[in-house]
């Protein structure tokens, strides 16, 4: 059983999601605001927090603030952002704060459950839209490519291929068979991209975030 905490200020959505989630997931609690969420996470230590991006309370930082204030627990608690918003600033803000993935609320219960399971297993969850943002923000579409594997500011050729396929709507399994690699390798690439997204000091990414007052 994977222990899940749902954080969303919309009670109808919380109960709807709770009813829709797979049976292998145990919902240990629900929180409606930033302060509630931080307290409840510290008290219950769930494996995965399903986190809305826009939340009332706290200093007004929403989901990203919840992650930052739970910073000491990040190695035990994983965050999966779940939002109606698909604007770039929301996505990038919450991922850079430390979320392991981003899905939109249009996804079905089964899809959300699969994403939760993936995040609990240590994988990153990329929606097609997030992959599109990543390709854009790292200049992949403009033809930039990392030369070494240590480089944080650009994507390697393989990472770009993986991101492109995800953006085209491929599942990890489909990406794997398209590129003749194992699913595990795909997951490794996605995690590497997530790490770059969180750690990169890439000029555009920072400027982009600063412009929208994310950092």
């Amino acid at each position, binding site marked *: 059983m994977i222990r899940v905490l749902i954080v*969303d*200020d*919309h009670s*109808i*959505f919380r109960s*709807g999601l709770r009813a*829709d989630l797979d049976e292998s997931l145990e919902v240990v609690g629900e929180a409606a605001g930033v302060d509630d969420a931080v307290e409840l996470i510290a008290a219950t230590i769930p494996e995965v927090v399903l986190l809305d991006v*826009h939340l009332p309370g706290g200093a007004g930082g929403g989901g990203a603030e919840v992650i930052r204030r739970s910073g000491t627990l990040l190695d035990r608690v994983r965050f999966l952002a779940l939002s*109606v*918003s698909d*604007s770039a600033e929301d996505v990038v803000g919450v991922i850079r704060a430390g979320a392991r993935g981003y899905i*939109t*609320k*249009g*996804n*079905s*219960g089964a899809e959300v459950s699969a994403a939760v399971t993936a995040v609990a297993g240590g994988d990153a969850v990329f929606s*097609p*839209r997030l*992959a*599109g*943002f990543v*390709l*854009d923000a790292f200049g*992949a*579409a*403009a*033809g930039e490519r990392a030369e070494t594997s240590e480089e944080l500011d650009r994507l390697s050729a393989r990472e770009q291929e993986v991101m*492109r396929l995800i*953006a*085209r*709507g*491929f*599942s990890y*399994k*489909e990406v794997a*068979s*398209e590129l003749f690699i194992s699913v595990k390798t795909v997951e490794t690439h996605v995690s590497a991209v997530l790490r770059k997204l969180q750690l990169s000091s890439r000029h555009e990414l920072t400027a982009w975030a600063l412009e929208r007052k994310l950092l």
Partner: protein
Amino acid sequence: MLRPPLVRPRAVVLAGVAAALADHLRWPVGVVRIAFVCLVFAGGMGALFYLWLWAFVPVEPEPASTAGSPITRRVPAAAILLGLAGVVDLALVVAISGSNDDVVNFCLVAAMLSGGAAVAWSLALDRGDPARTTRYTYVVRIGAVASLLIAGIAVLLSRPTALNAVLGLVAIVLGGAVLVTPRVVSLWADLMTERSARVRDEQRAEIAAHLHDSVLQTLALIQNRAGASSEVARIARAQERELRDWLFADDQPPAGDLATELRTVAAAIELDYAVRIEVVSAGAPIEPADPSLVGAAREAMLNAARHAGGEVSVYLETSAGAIDVFIRDRGPGLDLSALPDDRLGIRESIIGRMTRAGGTATVRPGIASGTEVHLHLEVARD
């Protein structure tokens, strides 16, 4: 026969009361005027009746073609009142040299009333009337100030008995007030306009935030509870899209950009078919959108919506030398070579169109299921 309604016309002599009444009673307007004047001598009844009608008879609504036109008055009432103030001033000076304090007081009050009324009239009733120029308003104001100051100072200098002095001071203060009133009025009006604009903006932002947190969430919930291909989900999705467009109208990329065009096309198709099309784009915006590329992409999306339904992914990537569009569905898949020749959809409107535009279109089966159409167009960009 029905009588015309009792309304005051918009082009009037003084207030339109006599004209309104004459029109309503079907009497000559001259008769009505004479009747009013006669009634004034019956204990002031005519004047009271006139004022009462002025206050309660509505003004004729303006015709739509000349919306915003002010009421025009033929008689320059403000100037006449100002003239009256001047006459009263003269009378006052004469009365000061006499010995009757009551006459002085009466003249002083009359000067204040007529001067104040002149300014009030020109500010309140002559506003926007093209026949009353700025200069006219200015003259009325200065004249009124002068008349009030003259009256006040003359009384204070010559006959400072208690009541006279107080009234004289009041006249001077009133003169000062008349001088600054228009400025205060216009400042006040500006303040009110600004405040209401700010309130409107705040309200809009608040509504947007509220809708974002509540209605969008509910629409999302409806969609995933109802299943992607149901009628309800389709309506909810269309509504969500409309609401989003309205909420974030300001940060949309300019229309005519390729990604925006593809999103518009996708939205239109979603309205007609049980399908959810997610459009993802990366790279610099392309303007203007190539019509044959948009047309081919539209045809591919339509095919996916018709034959596959469910979830369709569209990915647009613009790089330095080329535009790539991928349209991918998860339907039963199709075999291009097995297609009958009369299926013009793919052969003609996708592949043919792209070839004519100097690009390529490839249709291939998806990995596990479905079909993927790849449109590729080389572009020369600097």
